[in-house]
């Protein structure tokens, strides 16, 4: 016997079966088109953690910034002053969704909504946005050539409480294959309150390009006493895919009292620290391919950048095409 008989066992799938499965997959496509919102939350690498029921996961795994002061009688208050990129292994997110653990139940059962999130809503202009949100709006004074303000929206991520459950955190770690992380029993039942401030989004448009400018007073997180929150930060970093050693090294560089951890999908783009009017910003650049045109041909690949920075009491994000030069120029002109 040589290898050939082994290859000879190969056969084409029955045409009836191939057609039936193709039909089933088309039905899945149709279902996806009929429920675009739900699907979009699932399809992105980071946003799965931002879906309504999963906002808590973001707070828990990424947004929640532990502080070094461990025990205080009253709750700690966190305000964003700077950003730090945390490379996230997208396979871990996939494992959460494909694994046996019902991730939504894992987290959402621990969430108590105090104020519901408000979907983004179009308003007449910056003045109305400022009036409705109470945000003292800033705007870029320099725009890319031919770009103009096209739309303003306001929204709010809401306010909620998250109650830590040690058993569920352990289950989460297990699902993600993080075996060597200990969840302190003292975390059990600790309640964290997250208040997402109103967000104003301005869209500047030119030709095929959109530049999105977001501003918000930033989230406030009230942290309970008696919890070693530096450990919680290290736990979050481990869940994001860092090794124990990497998490420890990273944790040492973070000012936990004021830093918002931004999940960057590993290999999803490159990021660097930039100066924005004296503040340290985080510029993330990735490559996107345009959607196919009417002829069905794939569009060309383009660079896209997002810049995050803060000023006292406020956080900003600016996203647009290019490797960050235009975005940075706009950001530096924000007054």
């Amino acid at each position: 016997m040589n290898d050939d008989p082994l290859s000879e066992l190969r056969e084409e799938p029955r045409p009836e079966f191939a057609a039936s499965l193709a039909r089933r997959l088309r039905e899945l496509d149709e279902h996806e088109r009929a429920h675009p919102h739900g699907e979009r939350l699932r399809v992105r690498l980071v946003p799965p953690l931002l879906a309504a029921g999963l906002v808590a996961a973001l707070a828990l795994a990424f947004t929640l910034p532990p502080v070094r002061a461990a025990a205080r009688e009253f709750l700690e208050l966190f305000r964003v002053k700077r950003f730090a990129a945390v490379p996230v292994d997208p396979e871990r997110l996939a494992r959460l969704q494909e694994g046996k653990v019902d991730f939504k139940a894992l987290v959402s059962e621990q969430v108590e909504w105090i104020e519901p999130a408000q979907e983004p809503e179009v308003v007449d202009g910056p003045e109305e946005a400022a009036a409705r949100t109470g945000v003292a709006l800033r705007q870029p004074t320099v725009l890319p050539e031919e770009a103009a303000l096209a739309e303003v929206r306001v929204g709010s991520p809401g306010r909620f409480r998250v109650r830590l459950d040690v058993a569920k955190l352990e289950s989460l770690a297990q699902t993600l294959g993080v075996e060597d992380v200990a969840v302190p029993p003292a975390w059990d039942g600790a309640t964290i309150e997250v208040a997402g401030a109103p967000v104003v989004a301005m869209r500047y448009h030119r030709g095929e390009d959109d530049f999105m400018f977001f501003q918000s007073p930033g989230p406030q997180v009230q942290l309970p006493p008696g919890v070693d929150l530096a450990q919680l930060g290290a736990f979050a970093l481990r869940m994001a895919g860092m090794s124990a050693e990497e998490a420890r090294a990273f944790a040492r560089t973070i000012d936990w009292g004021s830093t918002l951890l931004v999940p960057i999908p590993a290999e999803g783009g490159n990021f660097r620290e930039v100066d924005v009017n004296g503040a340290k910003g985080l510029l993330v650049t990735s490559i996107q391919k345009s959607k196919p045109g009417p002829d069905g041909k794939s569009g060309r690949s383009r660079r896209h950048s997002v810049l995050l920075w803060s000023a006292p009491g406020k956080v900003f994000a600016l996203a647009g095409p290019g490797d960050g030069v235009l975005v940075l120029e706009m950001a530096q002109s924000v007054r």
Partner: protein
Amino acid sequence: MGGVRLLDWLGTVAERAEIDWDAVYREELPRIYNFFRYRFGNRSSAEDLTSVTFEKAWRARHRYRQERAAVSTWLLAIARNVAVDHLRQLRPEIPLDEAEAGARDDETPETAALRTSQHRRLWSLLAALPAREQELLSLKYGAGATNRAIANLTGLSESNVGTILHRTVIALRASWHEGEAR
């Protein structure tokens, strides 16, 4: 706009480039099907598990990352997980396919009968292999994966994959000749 949430927008920039998934289906269906066919020997199971694999992949296809793995490797990774789940449910039964009959256009009924008989023997030899060797042969000969792709999927080194496959084929050959000598 839809993305007032800052990180939601950030997620947008990491979205993957468009892929022709219909073409992926056409090209990869036989590979995935044959992976299961070789792995379990049963046509009906192969069809069921191929369906499960593609439905999982279809739902998760927006999470596929081109720069991380070829789409064929990504699909095979899903297929392997589906196979593991299937084995958990079915073990130790590994049924052989009963339906091999039917002459091809270019062969006589006698030749077809001989081919069917030989295939049946080969299926039973495959089914008797240890799980790891079965899987490697399914990936190599069923799915047509390269040794490098198999190494990526299984965590074995490429040279180790080559060695195991070589030894397995030699062992199969020995079993085959042993059967003929009886």
